[in-house]
């Protein structure tokens, strides 16, 4: 009776042990809004507007403008095969937004990048990089070409484990 009980406990604990190895505590999702994104080029600094709900080009901007945002992330879980990023925003009047996520090793080596272009009025785009391009020590960033004349709002980026 006693040994059966101990066996059951051992099995339950074994299952718990396996599950905890599946997703360690350090792997977590992170949502980051876009107000911190910066103009890529000095001459465009006054053509990028930061709002509480995102970033867009100035009304007087006659062409698309580049911005780059840091993407804080936590290392992938041990058994993960890829990492994903949701990029959210709006396009107005048929405008188009292009974005890509880049991953750099801490040494500065470009590990990989992935991109999308969309004209959807409200976009929620999923980008994925394989685990080989998202090392434990890798840094990630988001670069976007925002439509001219304030015709697009980049809301933010969420790292998904």
């Amino acid at each position, binding site marked *: 009776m006693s040994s059966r009980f101990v066996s059951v406990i051992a099995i339950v604990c074994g299952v718990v042990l396996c599950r905890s190895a599946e997703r360690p505590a350090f792997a977590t999702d992170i*949502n980051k*809004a876009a107000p911190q994104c910066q103009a890529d080029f000095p001459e465009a600094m006054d053509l990028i507007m930061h709002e509480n709900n995102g970033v867009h080009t100035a009304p007087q901007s006659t062409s698309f403008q580049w911005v780059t945002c840091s993407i804080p992330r936590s290392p992938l879980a041990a058994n993960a095969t890829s990492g994903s990023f949701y990029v959210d925003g709006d396009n107005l009047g048929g405008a188009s937004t292009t974005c890509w996520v880049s991953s750099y090793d801490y040494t500065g080596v470009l590990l990989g990048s992935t991109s999308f272009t969309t004209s959807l009025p409200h976009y929620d785009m999923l980008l994925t990089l394989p685990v080989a391009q998202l090392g434990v020590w890798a840094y990630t960033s988001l670069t976007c070409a925002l439509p001219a004349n304030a015709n697009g709002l980049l809301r933010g980026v969420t790292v998904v484990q």
Partner: protein
Amino acid sequence: MQIRHIRLWALIGALALSASFVAPAQADSINAAATECQPLSVPQHNVVHSWVGTGTDVNAPASVISCAVPRSPLSGAPGQGTFEVSAWIVTAGASISCTLYSYDYTGLFLGSVSFTLATATPTTQTPTMVSQQVSLPVTQLGYWAYTSMSCIVPANDSAFVTYVVSTL
């Protein structure tokens, strides 16, 4: 012998179980320095970024800035999300007024909370660091929500937003 073996595994399993409860995923907090805050809505060349955070330049007027507040959305969250915002008060009596916003990923406004960062008394010796803890109910912090914060930083280099910590 076999029973001893099973007991040993039970002990190891129990320890693993305990450890998994001690450090659950919801323990994650995110500390963000406020050095990336940007002028809100219009170009403002009076806003400066320094090692201490974001504020105004010497001889510059008060300005409004916006800061991203990175957060980790986690299951099993408590009834509210807590944020701690800090400021470096350079000039006695200076203060910073802020509003923390939450927007769904669709752009829908979910909620906000306003607060002021100031020293306990205007005569407090400066410079000094002050902190304020604020919270939003979990209903205003959906899993995919983005949080940001706007602050009015006073003129003449007199106070800086330094960092924000999100805990959910």
